[in-house]
C-alpha cells in the first residue's frame, strides 16, 4: 500500500496542525527549563524530518511504501511554532543525541535494526506516552506515537486494519453502513 502526500493531508485533516490550545490543565503545563533542549542544540527542521522518516521506516509496517513523502507532508502541518512542535523537535533531538552517543551515528544513518534497537533501548516500546514525562515517555509521545497517529488516523492506515474511516478522520457516514468488501 503506497502512502502519498495526499494521505498526509488526510491525516492532517483528521488530527490537524497543532498549537492553538492554550494548555489549561496542570498536567499539560510544561516547564521547559527541566527537559527541553536549548534552542541552539536543536536539530534543524531538515534533520528533524530526516530523523522522523528514519523512525517511520521502523514503526510503520513493511507493506506500506511512500513513507518519506507521507511523513514530509504530515510534518508540513505539524512542525510549526506551536508548543507541540517544540516538543517534537526536543524529543527528536534527544533521540538523535542518544544515537550519536550510543552508536556514533545519527538516527538517519543507522540500519533499520539499529533504529529499532535504539528505540527500545530508550524505552519507547514499553513507555506510556507522556508529553511532560521522561525521555522514554516523550519519545513515545512526540516521535513514535506522532507517527503512528498520522498513519492510523488516515484512511489508508485504517484500511490496513479494515476500517477505511478510522476514528479521527472525517470519512463521512456511508462506510458504517457498508458490509465487508
Amino acid at each position, binding site marked *: 500500500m503506497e502512502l502519498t502526500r495526499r494521505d498526509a493531508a488526510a491525516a492532517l485533516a483528521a*488530527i490537524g496542525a497543532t498549537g492553538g490550545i492554550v494548555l489549561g490543565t496542570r498536567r499539560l503545563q510544561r516547564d521547559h527549563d527541566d527537559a527541553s533542549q536549548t534552542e541552539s542544540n536543536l536539530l534543524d527542521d531538515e534533520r528533524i524530518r530526516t530523523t522522523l522518516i528514519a523512525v517511520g521506516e521502523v*514503526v510503520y509496517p513493511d507493506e506500506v511504501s511512500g513513507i518519506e513523502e507521507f511523513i514530509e507532508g504530515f510534518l508540513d502541518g505539524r512542525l510549526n511554532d506551536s508548543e507541540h512542535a517544540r516538543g517534537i523537535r526536543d524529543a527528536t533531538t534527544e533521540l538523535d543525541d542518544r544515537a550519536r552517543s550510543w552508536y556514533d551515528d545519527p538516527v538517519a544513518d543507522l540500519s533499520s535494526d539499529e533504529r529499532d534497537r535504539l528505540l527500545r533501548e530508550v524505552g519507547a516500546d514499553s513507555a506510556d506516552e507522556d508529553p511532560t514525562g521522561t525521555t522514554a515517555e516523550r519519545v513515545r509521545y512526540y516521535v513514535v506515537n506522532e507517527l503512528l497517529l498520522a498513519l492510523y488516523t488516515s484512511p489508508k492506515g485504517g484500511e490496513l486494519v479494515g*476500517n477505511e474511516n478510522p476514528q*479521527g478522520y*472525517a470519512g463521512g457516514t456511508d462506510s458504517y453502513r457498508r458490509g465487508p468488501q
Partner: protein
Amino acid sequence: MRPTETREAARAPVEDADVCVIGAGPAGGIVADRLAGAHDVVVLEAGPRFDFADRLERQERAIRPAYDRPDVWDVGGDRDAHSASGEWFYPLNHARVKGIGGSTLHWQGMVMRLHEGDFNSGSVRGVGPDWPIDYADLRPYYAEAERELGVAGADDNPYGPPREEPYPMPAFPPSYSDSLFAEACEELEIDMHSVPNARNSEPYDGRSECVGYGTCLPVCPSKAKYDATTHIESAEGKGATVIDRAPVQRLEHDADRVTSAVYATPDGEEHRQEADAVVVACGGVETPRLLLLSESTDYPDGLANSSGLVGRFFMDHLFAGAGGVLEEPTRQNHVGFYTSSCDQFYDDADADFAPFKLEFFNYAGPSPVEMALSGDEWGDDLLGSLRESYGNHVAMGGLVEQLPREDNYVALDHDRTDDHGNPVPDVHWTVGDRALRTIERANEIQREILEEMGADVEWVAGPDATGPAYHHMGTTRMSADPESGVVDADCRTHDLENCWVASSSVFPTSGAMNPTLTIAALALRTADAIETWL
C-alpha cells in the same frame, strides 16, 4: 466570536437587566435565547468560551492515551474539586464540562422523549413520585425542543410515546452491524427501531451534516452534533450579554426574591449582577451547590430550601452492557453514535423492575488508532495485533432508571474548598436493589441476543460492573407541594418569586432515557413561564 480583550472589558454587570441566567449549557442557553431580544438578558458562565478552532486538538486529546477524559475540555484542578462520600464513588469530573456549551460539548447527543409512564411513576408503577406535569403538558415543548436542537429521527418506534409530527431531519440509516443484530432479534421477537440523534443527518440550522469523525463523545470537530454554543451564540445575536469565566459565588436575596448574583472574575474582583428574574441553570450538581452556598438568616439551610430537599434525591442512569466477538467482520468504530435501539421492555416497569432501554452499539471493541498508541510494539507486529483485535466485535448497552432516594444527595463538603474558597460539592451516591435487579434483567436479554447471533460473549457490565451514565438529576425536584419539592410545575422555586431552575435537577424521577431533550423541553416551558411573569 468576540476577541478576548472585548470580553474582559465586558465582564462588568449589565445595568437594568431583566433576566440573569446562571450557566451556559443547554438549559441556560435555551432560556437565554428564548428571552433575548424582547428582554435584557445576561448569562454568567463559570467556565471559559472555548475556541472552535481548537476542536481538532481536543479531538487529538480524546484519542491519545496521555490524556484522561477531563483533560479534553480542561476539567479539573481546584476550580472543579469535589468529594464523593457515598457507598459508590461518583467520578464527577468525568461527567461534566464547564464552559460555554456546558456538558453538551462532550455528550454523545442521544435525545429521546421520556415515556408517558415516566411522568406518573407513583401511579403507574407504584414507586417514586408523580411529576406535577404530564407527558401531554410537555409534548408540544418536546416537538419544539427537537427543532431547536436539530434531531434526526424516524417515527418507527412502536413503544415510544405519541408524537404528532416528523422529526426535523431523517434518521441516520441503520449500520451494518445493526443488520447482524436484526437477524437475531427477529428470531427472538425483539423489536429494533431507529434512535433519535441530536446530530445532523443533513445540513441544519447553519451547521453541516455529520462527517464521521467518530469521536462524538467527547468532542465533535464539525459541530454536526448539537451543542449549546448554538443557543448562546443565537442569544448574543439578539443582544444577550454572555460573561464567561464568571463563577457565581452566591445569590443574594431577601425573604421573597433573589436580588443579585455575586460572581467572580479572573482579575480577582467580585461583581453583583442584579436582575428582575434569575434562572439557575447549572446542572444537577452545581445548581443545588449554589443554593446551599447562598444560605442566610432567612434560609439557614440554603436558599430556596424550606423543604429541606435541595440537593436530595440525586439520581443517575445506570449502564447495563454486554459484548463479545463474532466469526465475521462487524465494521465497528466508523462513527461514534448508535443508530438502533429497543424500547420494548421499557414500560414493563413496576415496583420491582425499573424501566430500561437497550442500545445496539456501532463502536464495539478497540479503536485501532487508540490501540496503536498504547501498545508496546510497532511495525509489522503492531499491524498484526491490530488486525487480530479489530474487526469482529459486537456490543450492546442500555440505561436503567434509578429511583430517587433521599440518602442520595449533593451536599457541601466543608472540609474542602475550591479555588474561590467555597466548600466543594460532595456527591453521595449509592444504587438500590430495583436498579441492580433491572441491570441483571437487561443483561439477560443482551446475552440472549448476542448468543443468538453466535457471539462469544466476552464481557458483561452487570450489577458489579455498572457505572453512572453522567446524567445528574433530581436535586431540586419539582412538586406542586412546597413541602415535597424545591420548584413548582413551572420550575419556579416555591420560596422565591423571581427564581427559576432550568436543569435536570428538577426531574422528580429519571426514567431511563437520556435527559437532554427533556431538559430542553422544560427550558422552553420555563422560558414561557418567565415571559408571562415578566
